[in-house]
């Protein structure tokens, strides 16, 4: 039973992706493009050359951070939708340190990353305190704080750190930028993301604290009755998930964008939520999903050039994947479906 459960949780996203692609192809056909040509160019755009792979991985980097943020929080039963705000607060503090402190090079990078993570953690902690001590719904609070953070970033790039006439901040000094890997677009930020992912995975599944955090997430009352410091874990999950997002914001600024500008980080928070859910809150699966999403985005540009299908088809495909996956995961939990599966396996046994 356990194996079939695992198989199902693996199959559901795969089937969802296939379904989403089928619908995507129908849309493409309706728009007058040849779906096979479009898919081919999508693939080439994302993975066709080493250079393209580099671009895809670079695109996936911030997504990995925000999805790990969501993943970590949900494991503790906290519905943190504020990944975007925490990402932005991290990048804002990072931007200050990088452009204003006068320090450059590796020390600045370390300071920037630590500062960004701290900023994300503190920003997230606000929601955490309101949840734990005022009983507030963390979803609404974190989303409201996303808007506040976005507007605050607006203040920074239109006012406080504005670079001349263009509404954007000054650029991060060359020496403070993260180095590229093998001359590709992808930078050491991607390596940091992978390391964070592995750490989250190790923490959740191989440490006693991680075990207890998951227990809190799955059944808060039972965790409390069994002596776990529930409030402490909830606050910790806010801080750590916020710090992961904040670190991501810093890494994105130092690795790819170099300046804060309108639209920086836009949508990454919700994307992270989607990817964590498709990855079923498994940190490593979540990373794969993030790379898949990034590939769709990068590839869709090539696809648009080749076939004229707008890049937003890839957004539709992504959205359909989440719509199908969540529904599919719910469906396989239904008693009726379980009975159906049971009958199938029985028949197989009888046949054998």
């Amino acid at each position: 039973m356990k194996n079939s459960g695992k198989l199902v949780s693996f199959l559901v996203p795969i089937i969802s992706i296939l379904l989403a692609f089928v619908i995507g192809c129908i849309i493409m056909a309706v728009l007058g493009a040849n779906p096979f040509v479009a898919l081919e160019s999508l693939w080439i755009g994302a993975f066709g050359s080493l250079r393209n792979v580099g671009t895809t991985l670079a695109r996936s980097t911030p997504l990995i951070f925000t999805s790990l943020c969501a993943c970590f929080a949900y494991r503790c039963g906290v519905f943190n939708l504020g990944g975007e705000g925490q990402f932005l607060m991290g990048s804002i503090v990072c931007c200050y340190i990088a452009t204003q402190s006068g320090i450059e090079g590796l020390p600045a990078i370390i300071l920037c990353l630590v500062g960004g993570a701290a900023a994300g953690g503190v920003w997230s902690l606000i929601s955490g305190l309101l949840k734990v001590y005022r009983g507030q719904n963390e979803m609404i609070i974190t989303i409201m704080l996303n808007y506040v953070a976005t507007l605050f970033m607006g203040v920074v790039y239109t006012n406080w750190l504005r670079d001349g006439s263009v509404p954007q901040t000054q650029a991060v000094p060359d020496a403070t930028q993260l180095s590229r890997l093998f001359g590709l677009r992808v930078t050491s930020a991607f390596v940091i993301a992978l390391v964070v992912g592995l750490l989250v995975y190790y923490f959740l599944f191989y440490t006693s604290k991680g075990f207890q955090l998951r227990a809190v997430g799955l059944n808060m009352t039972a965790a409390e009755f069994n002596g776990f410091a529930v409030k402490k874990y909830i606050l910790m999950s806010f801080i750590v998930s916020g710090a992961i997002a904040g670190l991501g914001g810093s890494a994105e600024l130092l690795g790819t964008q170099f300046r804060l500008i309108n639209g920086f980080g836009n949508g990454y928070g919700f994307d992270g939520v989607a990817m964590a859910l498709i990855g079923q809150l498994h940190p490593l699966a979540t990373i794969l999903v993030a790379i898949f999403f990034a590939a769709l985005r990068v590839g869709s540009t090539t696809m648009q050039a080749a076939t004229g299908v707008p890049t937003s088809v890839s957004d539709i495909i992504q959205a359909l994947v989440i719509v199908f996956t969540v529904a599919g995961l719910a469906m396989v939990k239904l008693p009726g479906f379980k009975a159906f599966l049971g009958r199938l396996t029985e028949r197989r046994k009888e046949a054998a």
Partner: protein
Amino acid sequence: MEFVMNIILSSVRMATPLIFLALAELYSQRAGLVHIGLEGLASIGSLVGFLVSLITGSPMLGVLAGAAVGILVNMIFAYATVTLCAEQIVYGMAINIFAPALAAFIYRVYFGAGSELVQVGLMNTLSGSLGITSDNFLVRLLLDQTPMVYLAYGLVIFTVIYFNRTKSGLNYKAVGEYPKAAATLGINVIGVKYAACVICGALAGIGGAYLTTCYANTYVDGNVAGRGFIALAAVIFGRWSGAGVLLACLFFGFCDALQIRLQVGSFGVPYQFFQMIPYVATVVVLASIGMKKAGPKSSGKPYLKEER
């Protein structure tokens, strides 16, 4: 005085989309369905409302189309959460991702990439269609409004009566409070939940369409700007009652109106700080209510018919 009157006038206007969205949430939660996907429903409603209003030249048809598409998209939510018993929060989130993506896609397909901003005529106000022009405050407050404003306030009154005075409203509430009990009394729980999704989708679609047919004359991605979530807060703040929700929406509408007015005379403060007002107000209001839990008891829980 002028300043105060202007703020009141614009509060009423700014509260209107929130009222539609908050009522959508109220009808959903009263049937036991927590819906955090209103932001998404409103965004697709806003796009479709805009397109139809542009094509037909009738903002009214735009609003109707917004309602229709809201219902359509919300049927996905209904099927997943009511029939498949998917987690409502998670599925609301899926709608929040799906619906705006669909809206953005349709916009790109229709207008092509990198097109110019297309504008559309807004709905006439009552005094506009009657040909009355007056600077009198009361006349402006009562007559210088689009039909949608009257509809919103009318719906609030309807909702109060419906939930407190009618048999059907009582049954509806029972579904959100204790579906199993409702079922033993012969109330069609699944049916009420689906009906709730139709109402919720329609109202959320109208709330979104309001933004492009009565408020701003164009569509941009993200134009709902968190109103779907503020509406959620308004339902909590309004203690799940029609009248309470109205007051909460007026308060948030006031915050919105205030920030717009304050931006004009910005006194050298970056305008973004004023724009934060509605969001910060939401956080402060929620934090001030504190722990007290209320609202429909079975909200958020799936209803399995043959439970074992």
